[in-house]
């Protein structure tokens, strides 16, 4: 699973962008919007994501009616019927409609899990890096504990014990992925806590928590944004794996559960497994591209060509 993808992604561009002389243009045009539009990866990723999110949001308008309705005869292969372009499943449900509605669950779980993980990671990381000393020692040890347990096995335990539902899945994924964010934020807070503007704030008599909120976190936001978008991607993959294993929310259809049920007819109708997998792959790819692109956009040392 791509749970540790964030470990290497943010570092890669820094490595491929040595301190060699930079083109003038990149220095001059440093606004976020300009750089974003110039980054092909960020643009491609966000267009892909916008398509998926749009389909998920407007599923009800595009395909009114229950996605679970049996609308036609079962086992229609994709691209053989104009009415059902992606075919029907073993119960005669429209696969295209199913995919679009499942996008809601997959995206919602991904966003919620990543959001919770970022929140946890920011709190732990900021406290640990800013205060240092024994606070840091204790929090770092706690972070290590959560990093030691194999992520998927841990999520499986959490979901199995809390019984499968959207909230237990979100919690399970967040609990296993926040350490990555915590490590990033800790490093930033460590770097910033002795910066001159932070010292100035301290001398002015500003309280610790206000310094963290107004000085440390705003300056640590770039790596968190990048890690966040990649976390959404890995949360979608984890949710898919859980649903595939039969630990998804039994009341909802997600791409993973579509693969799980399609698997039963893998030998005769493999398209039922292939299509939701492609949907996952494309969405995750869009998110990864967006994350990598944002990393370049937010890193002023990378010139965008």
């Amino acid at each position, binding site marked *: 699973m791509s749970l540790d993808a964030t470990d290497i992604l943010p570092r890669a561009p820094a490595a491929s962008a040595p301190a060699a002389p930079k083109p003038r243009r990149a220095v001059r045009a440093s606004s976020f919007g300009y750089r974003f539009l110039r980054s092909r990866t960020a643009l491609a990723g966000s267009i892909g994501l916008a398509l998926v999110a749009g389909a998920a949001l407007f599923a009800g308008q595009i395909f009114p009616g229950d996605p679970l309705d049996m609308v036609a005869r079962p086992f229609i292969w994709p691209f053989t019927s104009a009415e059902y372009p992606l075919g029907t499943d073993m119960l005669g449900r429209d696969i295209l409609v199913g995919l679009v509605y499942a996008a809601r669950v997959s995206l919602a779980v991904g966003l919620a899990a990543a959001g919770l993980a970022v929140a946890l990671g920011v709190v732990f990381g900021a406290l640990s890096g800013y205060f240092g000393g024994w606070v840091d020692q204790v929090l770092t040890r706690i972070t290590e504990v959560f990093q030691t347990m194999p992520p998927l096995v841990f999520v499986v335990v959490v979901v199995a014990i809390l019984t499968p539902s959207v909230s237990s899945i979100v919690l399970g994924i967040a609990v296993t992925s926040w350490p990555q964010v915590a490590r990033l934020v800790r490093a930033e807070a460590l770097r910033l806590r002795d910066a001159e503007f932070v010292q100035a704030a301290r001398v002015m008599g500003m309280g610790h928590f206000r310094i963290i909120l107004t000085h440390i976190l705003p300056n640590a936001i770039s790596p968190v944004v990048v890690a966040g978008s990649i976390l959404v991607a890995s949360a979608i993959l984890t949710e898919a794996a859980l649903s595939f294993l039969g630990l998804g929310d039994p009341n909802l259809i997600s791409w993973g559960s579509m693969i799980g049920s399609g698997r039963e007819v893998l030998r005769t109708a493999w398209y039922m497994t292939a299509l939701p*997998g492609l949907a996952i792959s494309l969405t995750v790819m869009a998110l990864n591209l967006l994350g990598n692109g944002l990393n370049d956009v937010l890193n002023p040392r990378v010139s965008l060509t």
Partner: protein
Amino acid sequence: MARALQLPEGRVLRYLGLRVVQVVPTILAIVVLNFFFLRLAPGDLAEVMAGEAGSATPEYMAMLRQQFGLDEPLAIQFFKYMGQLFQLNLGYSFRNSMPVLDLILTRAPNTALLMLSSLVLAVALGILFGAISAQWRGRWPDGVLSAVSTIGFATPLFWVGLMLIVLFSVELRWLPAGGMRDLQQAHTGLAAVGDVALHMVLPVLSLAFFYIAIYTRLTRSAMLEVLELDFVRTARAKGIAPLPIAVRHVLRNALLPIVTMTGLQLGTLLSGSVVIETVFAWPGMGRLAFDAVFQRDINLLLGVLFFSSFLVIVSNLATDLVYALLDPRIDVR
């Protein structure tokens, strides 16, 4: 590297000792978490057993609880649990009528076989692809390989496995779709090895797919970093051919992050193998955990969690040690 190995042994040992001491609180915390989960699980062991039997009187339940020590105060239960773990007793799986540790140990070698083969394949191909990418940076081989690794990062492992089954087992009928051995024929000797190898091809390929992508990207960026260094320019200026430079100067110095990655990858590799073992009915630890979930065998599930966390800790320690041995600049204190 030969020079690095001359590091005074005492220092390395002391470093190892320090790290082992640091690991103790981590293990303790995992034990606490495990115990917490065990208590949090809906229905205690007595209820599960009674449900199994079909009917149970309150007296019988009380007897069961007493038998398992579930009527004792929480703190006492916790210390008993911890004492058991220190004796490497992970509890008893009533579903399988076997101690949990024995169950895990019969399955662990199968998982290890799967994981190590995938890792070797992923490292070998990843380094090869990464080196090619770095060497032809910005040209078509780099483009093709980075497109493939972008796909590798984004594709669910289990789906790759299912698609490989469709292609190689259902359509082409070249390879078996699941299991570890041919159950219809009892192979012996070399034939048995060949049989297992044949069954391994698809699971190993699917598990390795994602990691090939990781190693490709890692090797590429590590090599690009080294390529900028002065000694590479010197080597070039001396007239050494590009291939020996790439292999002996650049790649060798780019190996360090790859070693780190390999050590730290074990946890996610174990996670990946849970899914892959389920897809291919591979009789390993992941499959065991999966079965434990659906048999409501919490003892066994937590046993797998604890055992695999322990493996991760050991592999992290080993990584640190290899790291210290490989790089003489690292301060081992």
